[in-house]
């Protein structure tokens, strides 16, 4: 029975989440669920709080109010030790890659393995090379992070995020800076991990078509609210103005492209005297 409940509860369950940065409201009572073994995409204009949301799932930021449950545990209330052991089962791809700049590519990918397992060095080597092969960078193992291009660095970071085969992987814009070929490879990689290992994936992405092609469910965030959600098919035929603007990449519509500001004419006329 217990087991059954666990199966039914989504891996990540966010209820009534509120968050603010200074005066700016980032989340205003939002609810999301990310079911086990599924790929959930989060989309929304730049600066709407997608990275912030991932950080809350990882317990790096505390919400103002509301609940964030991961695998049945309330992240905001966990002790440091419990949070650390939860994070061992999470992989996170940072938007900036965040590779350790003093270590070569190989050691970067080996880092979580060496920190958290007592595997013999030979096995670490095999695992690292397999992960690097999956992102097409086995040949780059000896390069330093400063010698990588932006897209390559992100793929190394991806290899590092999946090194421990975590139960959930949070991808912050995995496709940025990828050419069409590596984009295709990454899409397939995420899909495969999802199918073969049952990994739960959360993808933050601006590449609407690509992300939609592999995700099971999509949330569209804007202005602190969830302005649309559904399966890719549902969103594709949705007639909500908000969703349409985003899915069809229209500049005009209810979603604001601009960071909140006063009227531009007023701003220009004001000269320098604010």
């Amino acid at each position: 029975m217990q087991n059954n409940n666990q199966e039914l509860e989504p891996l990540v369950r966010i209820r009534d989440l509120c968050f603010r940065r200074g005066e700016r409201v980032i989340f205003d009572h939002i609810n999301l669920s990310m079911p086990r073994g599924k790929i959930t995409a989060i989309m929304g204009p730049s600066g709407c709080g997608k990275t912030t949301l991932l950080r809350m799932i990882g317990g790096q930021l505390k919400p103002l109010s509301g609940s964030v449950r991961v695998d049945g545990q309330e992240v905001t209330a966990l002790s440091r030790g419990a949070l650390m052991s939860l994070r061992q089962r999470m992989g996170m791809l940072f938007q900036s890659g965040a590779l350790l700049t003093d270590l070569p590519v190989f050691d970067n990918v080996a880092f979580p393995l060496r920190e958290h397992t007592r595997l013999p060095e030979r096995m670490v080597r095999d695992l690292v090379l397999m992960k690097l092969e999956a992102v097409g960078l086995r040949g780059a193992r000896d390069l330093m992070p400063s010698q990588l291009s932006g897209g390559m660095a992100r793929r190394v970071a991806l290899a590092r995020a999946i090194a421990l085969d975590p139960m959930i992987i949070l991808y912050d814009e995995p496709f940025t800076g990828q050419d069409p070929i590596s984009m295709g490879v990454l899409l397939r990689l995420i899909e495969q991990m999802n199918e073969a290992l049952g990994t739960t994936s959360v993808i933050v992405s601006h590449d609407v078509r690509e992300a939609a092609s592999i995700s099971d469910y999509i949330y569209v965030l804007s202005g602190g609210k969830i302005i649309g959600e559904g399966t890719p098919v549902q969103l594709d035929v949705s007639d909500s103005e908000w969703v349409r603007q985003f899915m069809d990449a229209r500049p005009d519509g209810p979603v604001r492209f601009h960071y909140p500001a006063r009227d531009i004419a007023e701003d220009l006329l004001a000269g320098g005297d604010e």
Partner: protein
Amino acid sequence: MSALRALGRAGLSFFERLGRGHIFLLYTLGGLPATLYRWRLLTSQVFALGVLSLVIIAVSGLFVGMVLGLQGYNTLVDFGAEESLGILLALSLVRELGPVVSALLFAGRAGSALTAEIGLMKTTEQLAAMEMMAVDPLHRVVAPRLLAGILAMPLLAAIFSAVGVYGGYFVGVGLLGVDEGAFWSQMQSAVDFHDDILNGVIKSFVFGIAVTWIAVFEGYDTAPTSAGISRATTRTVVNSSLAVLGLDFVLTALMFD
């Protein structure tokens, strides 16, 4: 009125940082056992902080010793006491100049580098990435550096003093003709192991803690911008130099009253 308010705010933020610094130290100390266990992390830091500071420490020690030899000789010779040059050199180096000057140099050479390194790791989200990989940066990054600094400082101070004595020997005995036997034997009989050598080591040990602690804390507490890193580096050098000089007064008063 507003000046008073600013003063109050500055005072509050000072004590807040002081408190954060202590909590930070406490968490970091929790990582020391693991650091001892993973000695490779420690040795690479001892190399970066200690071995790479050797040149500046040795060269400065040599010149300070030479200047001491010259000045000491000029003063002592008026009283016909130039044979006491060895005592003057050894005591002033071992008790004061060795620990203090090498700590000041260490703050400039290694402390600033520590702050910049950790600050940049924070700015580029490397520390956040470690946290997300369930690796505590305080244990993995800060603890080995803190321990390495504390270990390296007394050794560097000892090297500084030893090289300084030879610098003074070179000027006094080699160039100015002080009697070699008297130089060494007077030094040997006047320098006490407990009162002089041990107290000097304790001083440099305390300075090592102060300088490295300030350096790693400033790095960890950096505002994540380029200006933030540059401010933190400056603060490391200024604050740890002031801390060294202040602590030196306190320790001297306690030890040699």
